[in-house]
């Protein structure tokens, strides 16, 4: 599976450069932007796995991010769990939550599935807004005030975590799409009826994809909340997380491997530029998204794949998996 081809060499070189940046003393602001890029990249890759390759347009990913974040916060706050246990446990909690919910959710298809998952965010927000596990005298804890997340990690270590998760998400996508599961998912996305006739267990394939994506989305969320140092319901279960995933995948190119990488970079840049024009930013984003969907539905990568230059470049890398 992991042949040392041009692609991986490129990936290793880029990763090394990114890893060296904090050492050579790059500014905090740039580091912060790169940190966001890697978190967004992991989120976008996983949303692409769901919507682009599995036909599961899940709008409930913020709920799973929040569950992972809250589990992490709880474990650190109440039990002082070491991070190497707390982070996998948080991802596992989100995945378990997704597994239980998959029973009712997978009874719905298409738009109904999307709407059903969208509701999860609101349900979670309301519940965590109300939930106060233990009253702590003198400190507002739980409910709308949320929890602090004290990890003791330096910002640079957290940057490295984000780098690792972002790069891992690229490798994970390549691995899944090249696997038997990936082939099954693409077949289901293309034609569900034919997929079943070809011997594919649709429910099981979709479930695996849903659980893998949720685990990794939870991981990205953990890294983000370690950095933020605090979690509260309104932000955790906010639709703006959904905006990040959707924008990155759709602008970059849904159902393409490269799309989320390009898309995440654009979304991060926009998130840094647009606050200066706060009153116009929803307008600008809306127009951008409309233009992309109208003129190049397969996104920027879809547009580039039609050009000769890009295809010539791809020759030196291994073929993208459609």
């Amino acid at each position, binding site marked *: 599976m992991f042949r040392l081809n041009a692609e991986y060499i490129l990936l290793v070189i880029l990763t090394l450069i990114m890893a060296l940046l904090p050492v050579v003393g790059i500014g905090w602001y740039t580091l912060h932007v790169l940190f966001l890029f890697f978190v967004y990249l992991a989120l976008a890759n996983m949303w692409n796995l769901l919507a682009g390759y599995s036909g599961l347009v899940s709008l409930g990913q913020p709920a799973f991010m929040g569950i992972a974040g809250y589990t992490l916060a709880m474990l650190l706050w109440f039990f002082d769990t070491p991070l190497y246990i707390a982070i996998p446990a948080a991802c596992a909690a989100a995945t378990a939550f997704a597994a239980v919910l998959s029973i009712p959710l997978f009874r719905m298809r298409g738009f109904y599935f999307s709407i059903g998952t969208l509701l999860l965010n609101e349900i979670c927000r309301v519940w965590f807004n109300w939930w106060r596990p233990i009253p702590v005298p003198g400190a507002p804890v739980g409910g709308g005030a949320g929890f602090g997340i004290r990890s003791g990690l330096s910002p640079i270590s957290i940057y490295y975590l984000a780098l690792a998760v972002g790069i891992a998400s690229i490798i994970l996508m390549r691995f899944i799409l090249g696997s*038997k599961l990936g*082939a*099954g998912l*693409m*077949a289901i*996305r*293309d*034609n569900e*009826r*034919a*997929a*079943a*006739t*070809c*011997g*594919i*267990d*649709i429910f099981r394939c979709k479930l695996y994809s849903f659980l893998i994506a949720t685990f990794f989305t939870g991981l990205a969320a953990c890294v983000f909340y370690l950095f933020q140092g605090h979690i509260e319901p309104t932000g955790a279960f906010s639709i703006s997380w959904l905006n990040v995933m959707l924008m990155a995948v759709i602008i970059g190119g849904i*159902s393409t491997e490269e799309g989320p990488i390009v898309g995440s970079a654009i979304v991060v840049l926009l998130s840094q530029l647009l606050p200066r024009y706060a009153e116009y930013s929803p307008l600008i984003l809306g127009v951008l998204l409309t233009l992309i969907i109208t003129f190049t539905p397969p996104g920027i990568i879809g547009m580039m794949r039609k050009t000769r230059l890009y295809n010539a470049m791809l020759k030196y890398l291994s073929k993208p998996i*459609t």
Partner: protein
Amino acid sequence: MASDDSILDVQRLKKSFGGLVAVRDFSFHLGKGEILGLMGPNGAGKTTVFNLISGVYKPDSGVIKYKGMNIVGLPPHKIRRLGIARTYQIPQPFPRLTVLQNVQIAAMYGGGFSKAESEKRAHEVLDFIGLSDKKDMPAGNLKLLDLKMLELARAIVSNPSVLLVDEVGAGLREAEIPHLVKILKTINEMGVSIMLIEHIPRLVVETVDRLIVMNAGEKIADGKPREVIRDARVIECYLGKEIVEE
């Protein structure tokens, strides 16, 4: 009628959609190594029979025995993995995947072969069926004949014991039919029992060993193809009564 050497034994199959009875007390068997034709006017329930056997629909009542085991109620993917493959009348490709990937996926999931073995088998089947020059094309770009051939390739790549072919000849030109007959015969010689829904008389008479005719969900004739198509009830259901009386 069912004997020990039948691979598929269907007894008193019934399926209705709302008030419409699509299949009514339909019994038949498919012999090992046989090519069985299924004819009937539009709406006779032929495709419904295929959908019932392949698990797309669940029958209201009746038994479908495959190699002696009742498969009623099993989901489509399990029935396929047991060895009953089918094609659709309207081709159902995976349009964004290449022709090779289409076939390879069926080998992996339907036949349980490894990835490498599936790819090898897919190449062989595409060679046999005459699609190897188009193997890297997205299946969505294929023309009708090629799509029908892809359906067949995807069905046989998993080494099924039973192949259900739904109107593979419909919409094809006369000149393309001999090629199709040859392919079906070769598949049959490899040991696959075939059940064929077909309207084209030439294709039916040249290919099948036995012919069943359905009308309004019921079996009205079962026997040697040349005798069956002369049967008065068969002619009646296709052409109407008066012509028979002349």
